[in-house]
């Protein structure tokens, strides 16, 4: 340890130590001279002999200095300074290199940063690795929350959690803060919420058991952002009031800046204590609680899973909904309890975007690879220009490794500068991407600033990049023997096989990107134009949301009917209806459906709630029976519509109309009559073909949902937006939270594909441009180095045309080899992303053909000019130069 300290001291006092050593050796030399003089030699002779005996002082000093052990570092530092000087002398190359590196490394960082924020980053709470989430497995394979009774039973029987709480999953609400009314997000969580997570308040206090005593709640905890934005960061905000749906809540505290709740993508404005006493909340069929617990010290996730699985049967028995028959009973008991880590919080975006982000990661990795290959070519050309310098150095005794280190220092410097710039590019890119992928009603709160992981990733990529594009040219550049390099007519390596293979690599990679882009663009086109079983043009979607207190005392079915009639009376409106989820939302909400007779096992079908005239509004077909009417309300018997595919499945022998079915677990939907069969439209996810669906009428299922109004316009739907909004607001119960056409909604649903398609097109074109430049450079060089050969050919009678063809053929051969190498890679890649494609075979001929033609065209263009120059060579000039 002391030794290291002494070495460090030497490093910082180098100059001083150097001078001391020199003085010391001078003294030694003088003593020797004196001794020689005493032995009888003359002054001059004494000095000579002494110096001869002493040896080379410079060498001695160097050897002594090397004992300090910092030599490699010093050499590296010198290499860096030299690299700075050489790069400064060629600003064009340096700028191009740094920019292309910044783009490549920045793109990689941006995607990784987004992946980090969505998938990798842990919650900013104490020891997030000890947090686990409990959920149940639904029959259709999805994970679902727990019911209130399940939560309470687990709370009673568990012994492995030091803290356990339930969270509502977040929701939207109307707020009034500081006199301003707005719509924001709310979190409802049981009293152990903050304690289990380990969050300390920034101001005031957090939940205590007393807060739950009053139900509905009378207190709230503010999120940091809400505090700053809506209350201007008032330090005396504790004790002030915020209104939630017209109810005043006293603010008891504010959470710190880095905490934004369990949900990764948004920060709710407030958290309200949840006391689950309400009868509707406690219904045993309602699975709505997200349960999170903190494991006790020393308990592993496996142990937790084992213990919970042991108590789960008892919990199930205690929480079984009443009046369950055998089929439904078995269904209920078949649910398993799932225990997963909650260290990275909960995210709805994560599920949806992990795969496309992975694909994008691949795309930008290829782009970086292309940039590296390009740079390698440029570095090779530079190395060619420094042959003499390398030759002299090697003649003076430098080892090959020493020269390579010099080249690597340059590469590292370029990469480091590119990475630093790249981090800036990444910040901007992440923000841009994050805004693209989220179009919720509450603003996104993903923090795009790079944290330690992103910086480390960027640094790692930079080093890898530097090695990738630095080593090969360095190796090639130092291969020549010193003697040949010193001679002026040295053969330069810039046109050799290595340079050619670089261009071939660029062509292959560009092919992969171009064909990939083509496939995604075609996928998007197919998804937009495929017959989904309903008409997609001319439809306006209006998301309704109640004013504060807007639903108080309101007979909602009557209200909706009145609203529909008013809107239908507008000029330019063909028909109006309502729906809960459809059309075009990026997931399908499924529940088990079975015939009441129990003849068949339950089938998972998409469930949705429709108003009357929905079929007409969306251009769907009624195949048998009738559509819903406003008379299908709470006083009438329960009815449903089914899709043709579901009808065929459940009742293969005959007519489904008139049959009775059971849907899900709700007690109101255990005896439903089918009144109509409609075509199997892909109303939700366009990709799923002929989904099995069951629809319930709005008049019977309006509880607890916020329907969307669906308007079919005669001509242009956007023109209707304002009149419709005025009608809604004129009725004073609700307002329009969002109005968009179906096509706009479709754009949002196709976001994954559009994202990849756009980015890969952009990068593909960039790659094509780089390949074109690379090929052009190579061909130019080839022509200039073959001037003599061409001169001889033409002197012997070759036509300019044949010379032209010769040169162009060379370029085409390179591209052909690149294409041949790229095709199997592209095939492999398309297999990897096949899940994201639609309507295309594994080797889509159109995209592949398009990519190849584009590359060939570019090859012709790039080779033409140099070839023309070759054809124009004057044989006399050429032969004279030789």
């Amino acid at each position, binding site marked *: 340890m002391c030794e290291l300290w*002494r070495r460090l001291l030497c490093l910082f006092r180098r100059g001083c130590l150097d001078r001391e050593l020199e*003085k010391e050796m001078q003294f*030694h030399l003088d*003593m*020797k001279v004196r001794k020689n003089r005493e032995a009888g030699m003359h002054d001059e002779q004494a000095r000579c002999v002494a110096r001869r005996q002493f*040896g080379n002082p410079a060498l001695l000093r160097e050897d002594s*200095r090397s004992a300090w*052990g910092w030599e490699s570092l010093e050499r590296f530092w010198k290499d860096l300074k030299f690299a700075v000087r050489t790069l400064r002398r060629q600003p064009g190359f340096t700028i191009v290199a740094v920019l292309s590196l910044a783009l490549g490394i920045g793109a990689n960082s941006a995607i990784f940063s987004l992946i980090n924020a969505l998938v990798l980053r842990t919650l900013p709470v104490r020891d997030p690795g000890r947090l686990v989430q409990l959920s149940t497995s639904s029959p259709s394979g999805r994970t679902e929350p727990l019911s209130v009774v399940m939560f309470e039973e687990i709370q009673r029987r568990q012994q492995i959690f030091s803290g356990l709480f339930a969270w509502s999953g977040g929701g939207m609400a109307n707020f009034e803060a500081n006199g301003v009314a707005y719509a924001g997000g709310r979190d409802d969580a049981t009293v152990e919420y903050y304690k289990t997570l380990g969050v300390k308040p920034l101001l005031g206090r957090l939940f205590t058991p007393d807060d739950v005593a009053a139900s509905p709640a009378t207190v709230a905890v503010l999120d940091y952002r809400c505090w700053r934005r809506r209350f201007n960061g008032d330090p005396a905000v504790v004790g002030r009031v915020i209104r939630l749906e017209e109810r005043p809540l006293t603010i008891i505290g504010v959470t710190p800046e880095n905490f934004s709740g369990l949900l990764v993508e948004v920060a709710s404005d407030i958290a309200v204590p949840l006391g689950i006493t309400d009868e509707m909340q406690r219904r045993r069929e309602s699975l709505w609680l997200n349960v999170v617990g903190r494991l006790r010290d020393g308990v592993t996730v496996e142990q937790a899973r084992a213990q919970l699985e042991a108590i789960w049967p008892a919990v199930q028995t205690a929480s079984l909904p009443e009046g369950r028959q055998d089929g439904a009973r078995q269904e209920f008991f078949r649910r398993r309890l799932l225990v997963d880590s909650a260290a990275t919080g909960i995210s709805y975006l994560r599920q949806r975007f992990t795969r496309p982000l992975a694909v994008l990661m691949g795309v930008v990795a290829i782009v970086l690879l292309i940039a590296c290959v390009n740079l390698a070519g440029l570095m090779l050309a530079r190395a060619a220009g420094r042959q003499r310098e390398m030759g002299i150095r090697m003649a003076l005794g430098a080892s090959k490794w020493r020269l390579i280190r010099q080249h690597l220092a340059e590469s590292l410097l370029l990469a480091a500068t590119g990475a630093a710039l790249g981090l800036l590019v990444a910040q901007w890119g992440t923000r841009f991407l994050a805004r693209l992928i989220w179009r919720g009603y509450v603003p996104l709160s993903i923090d795009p600033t790079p944290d330690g992981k992103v910086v480390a990733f960027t640094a790692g990529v930079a080093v890898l990049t530097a090695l990738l594009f630095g080593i090969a040219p360095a190796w090639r550049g130092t291969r020549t023997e010193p003697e040949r390099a010193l001679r002026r007519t040295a053969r330069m390596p810039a046109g050799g096989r290595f340079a050619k293979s670089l261009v071939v690599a660029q062509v292959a990679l560009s092919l992969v990107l171009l064909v990939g882009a083509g496939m995604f663009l075609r996928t998007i086109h197919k998804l937009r134009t495929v017959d989904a079983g309903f008409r997609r043009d001319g439809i306006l979607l209006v998301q309704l949301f109640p004013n504060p207190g807007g639903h108080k005392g309101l007979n909602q079915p009557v209200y909706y009917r009145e609203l529909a009639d008013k809107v239908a009376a507008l000029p330019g409106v063909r028909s109006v209806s309502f729906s809960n989820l459809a059309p075009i939302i990026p997931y399908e909400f499924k529940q088990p459906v079975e015939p009441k007779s129990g003849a068949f096992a339950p089938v998972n079908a998409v469930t949705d709630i429709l108003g009357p005239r929905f079929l007409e509004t969306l251009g769907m077909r009624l195949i048998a029976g009738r559509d819903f009417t406003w008379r299908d309300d709470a006083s009438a018997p329960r009815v449903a519509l089914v899709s043709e595919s579901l009808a065929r499945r459940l009742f293969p022998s005959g007519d489904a109309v008139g049959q009775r079915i059971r849907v899900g677990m709700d007690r109101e939907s255990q005896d439903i009559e089918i009144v109509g069969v409609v075509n199997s439209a892909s109303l939700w996810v366009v990709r799923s073909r002929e989904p099995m669906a069951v629809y319930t009428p709005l008049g019977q299922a309006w509880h607890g949902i916020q329907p969307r109004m669906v308007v079919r316009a005669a001509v242009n739907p956007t023109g209707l937006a304002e009149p419709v909004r005025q009608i809604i607001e004129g009725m004073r119960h609700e307002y329009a939270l969002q109005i968009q056409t179906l096509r706009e909604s479709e754009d949002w649903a196709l976001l994954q594909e559009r994202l990849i398609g756009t980015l890969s097109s952009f990068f593909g074109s960039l790659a094509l441009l780089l390949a074109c430049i690379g090929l052009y450079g190579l061909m130019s060089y080839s022509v200039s180095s073959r001037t003599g050969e061409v001169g001889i050919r033409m002197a012997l009678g070759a036509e300019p045309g044949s010379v032209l063809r010769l040169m162009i053929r060379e370029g085409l051969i390179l591209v052909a080899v690149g294409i041949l190498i790229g095709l199997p890679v592209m095939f492999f890649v398309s297999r990897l992303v096949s899940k994201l494609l639609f309507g295309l075979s594994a080797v889509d001929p159109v995209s592949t053909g398009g990519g190849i033609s584009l590359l060939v065209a570019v090859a012709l263009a790039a080779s033409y000019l140099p070839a023309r120059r070759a054809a124009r060579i004057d044989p006399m000039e050429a032969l004279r130069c030789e």
Partner: protein
Amino acid sequence: MHGYGIAQHIQQISEDVLQVEEGSLYPALQRMLIKGWVTAEWGQSENNRRARYYRLTPAGKNQLNVEISEFEKVIQAITRVIQPA
């Protein structure tokens, strides 16, 4: 003792059998400095010149003993090998 003095001393005591090259003396002294086996300080020499004096540290003395015992082991081994011959 200063560097020159060390070289002279070794040469005299060993009666010219061991001659220390300056080329190996100073690097060795630097290494010992780094490892903390000697300390150095500037002082006045006999002829009123400034010279750097080296002194053994306790750690250095330990190391010296270790080196001596190693060396003796080697000598004994060589002697044993030679003796029967």
